């Protein structure tokens, strides 16, 4: 008995010694990057992106990379005043009012403005480079299909923004067609728009990736729900959990290896990552995305070069160069800083599991069938004339182009 007790105490002492050693090994000596026990820069912990920066720079800032402190303070004050106002609603009984879901000011994250005028640091104007003719063509085909299905709805009848480029008309025979390209995200405007999401609910793939709990993309810049990263390292691998979207988080494992990428016929949703250390920076090359992956207009030819650098105990700088010669006329680069969070205070992790609670998808499919039956029995309007995607009505807490609009894009 006594022998066992000594054994237990001995093992406990060894564990304690190892823990102390590990903690000492990770201590941040002034001016040095924290190291793992096996001698690599230590990126581990919970990290968050707690400042708001637009992806693309508003035109009025030209090539200026940073706000002045006065500009930030004034913009934050204006944003806070708008977001703090009572809820605003669209016209009661409109599809836009339903689309508002619930108070948009609380549904999305609203963080203090960062120093940068855009996440994009290259090209110098802070804008995504122009789309190639090939990408424009693909987008136009998708948009034409979206508009064909929207044309008999109030969105086109009232000439709302969702119908931009289209016009009100009768039911289109195209409603029975297979979409011209794989449908991905909602939204028709902007460089990343045109990914799909159509006014039809015949099956799950008519609906957006978000509705299918598949909205997580790489690269991920935080988005409208905010996010955190949890990084864990071991010799030969860096693992990152992305808490993103609405329970759409995912685990990413980056092998740190000199091995080549997977063969080009093997495609993965978040691509194939290969990491290497260049000094204190983890450089990750990502290829092999799928034809169904969608990032700002790019699909399977997306190529990322990420650079993860721990600047100090509290900060990681993340820079990613994004290229796809079939989508953009030149590469572009985004830069963000992540802040260390308290690992203990934030230890309660909520598993994403969007699929498990995704009652919305079956409900909207059943809802579409109920409407079809009602129409067939002469009890309701043709469901094709009602808007179920791209209807508008979600304004991120900001109002019209007047005093309640987002001061950044006003």
């Amino acid at each position, binding site marked *: 008995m006594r022998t066992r007790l000594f054994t237990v105490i001995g093992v406990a002492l060894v564990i304690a010694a190892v823990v102390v050693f590990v903690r000492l090994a990770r201590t941040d000596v002034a001016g040095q990057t924290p190291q793992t026990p096996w001698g690599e820069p230590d990126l581990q912990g919970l990290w968050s992106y707690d400042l708001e920066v637009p992806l693309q720079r508003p035109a009025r800032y030209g090539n200026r990379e940073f706000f002045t402190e006065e500009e930030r303070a004034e913009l934050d004050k204006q944003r806070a005043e708008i977001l703090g106002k009572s809820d605003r609603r669209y016209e009661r009984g409109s599809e836009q009012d339903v689309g508002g879901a619930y108070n948009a000011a609380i549904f999305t994250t609203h963080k203090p403005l960062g120093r940068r005028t855009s996440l994009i640091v290259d090209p110098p104007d802070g804008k995504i480079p122009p789309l190639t003719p090939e990408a424009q063509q693909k987008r136009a085909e998708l948009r034409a299909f979206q508009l064909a299905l929207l044309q008999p709805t109030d969105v086109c009848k009232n000439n709302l923004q969702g119908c931009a480029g289209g016009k009100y008309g009768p039911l289109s025979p195209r409603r029975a067609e297979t979409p011209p390209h794989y449908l991905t995200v909602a939204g028709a405007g902007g460089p990343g728009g045109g990914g799909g999401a159509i006014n039809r609910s015949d099956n799950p793939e008519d609906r957006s990736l978000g*509705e299918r709990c598949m909205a997580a993309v790489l690269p991920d810049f935080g988005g409208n729900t905010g996010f955190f990263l949890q990084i864990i390292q071991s010799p030969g691998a860096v693992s990152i959990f992305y808490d993103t979207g609405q329970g759409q988080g995912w685990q990413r494992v980056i092998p740190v290896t000199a091995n080549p990428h997977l063969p080009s016929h093997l495609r993965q949703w978040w691509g194939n990552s290969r990491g290497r250390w260049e000094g204190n920076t983890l450089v990750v090359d990502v290829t092999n995305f799928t034809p169904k992956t969608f990032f700002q207009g790019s699909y399977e030819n997306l190529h990322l070069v990420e650079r993860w650098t721990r600047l100090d105990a509290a900060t990681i700088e993340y820079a990613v160069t994004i290229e796809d010669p079939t989508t953009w006329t030149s590469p572009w680069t985004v830069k963000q800083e992540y802040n260390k969070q*308290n690992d203990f205070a934030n230890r309660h992790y909520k598993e994403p599991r969007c699929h498990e609670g995704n009652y919305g998808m079956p409900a909207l499919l059943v809802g579409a069938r109920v409407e079809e039956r009602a129409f067939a029995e002469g009890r309701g309007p043709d469901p094709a004339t009602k808007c179920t995607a791209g209807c508008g009505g979600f304004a991120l807490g900001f109002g019209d182009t007047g005093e309640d609009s987002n001061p950044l894009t006003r």
Partner: protein
Amino acid sequence: MRTQLAVVLGGLGLLLAGTAVPVSAHHAFAAEFDSNKPVNFKGTVQKVEWVNPHVWIHIAVKRPDGTVEPWAIEGGTPNVLFRRGFTRQSLTAGTEIMIDGYRSKDGTRRANGRDLTFADGRKMFLGGSGTGAPYELRPGGEQK
């Protein structure tokens, strides 16, 4: 009103143009809920189902004839609500709330809470910070 709506949507288009990820709710609420079936009633919270992608607030609604109907109200996403300081303790069983929203198209007793208020009229969910904005994070530094 219509002009104003068009202008709002125009603004939204601009927002979409400059945003990194799809700026949409997890799902299009107009697909799930019926604009022709508005609901507006008071209910007593039974429990909050704290699940991704949306929390569900289960309530009991007393009808004029005295019968009680169970309803489920779709709310925000847990991670954002957490960041706002909304926890399991924020809405306990027995609390009376007002629902102003739209019923599910599939005919079940489910609705989106387009506006949720406490029975005394206080708004739910509107967190605050020093600036008055519903920020979920304080600026800079390590979060406690």
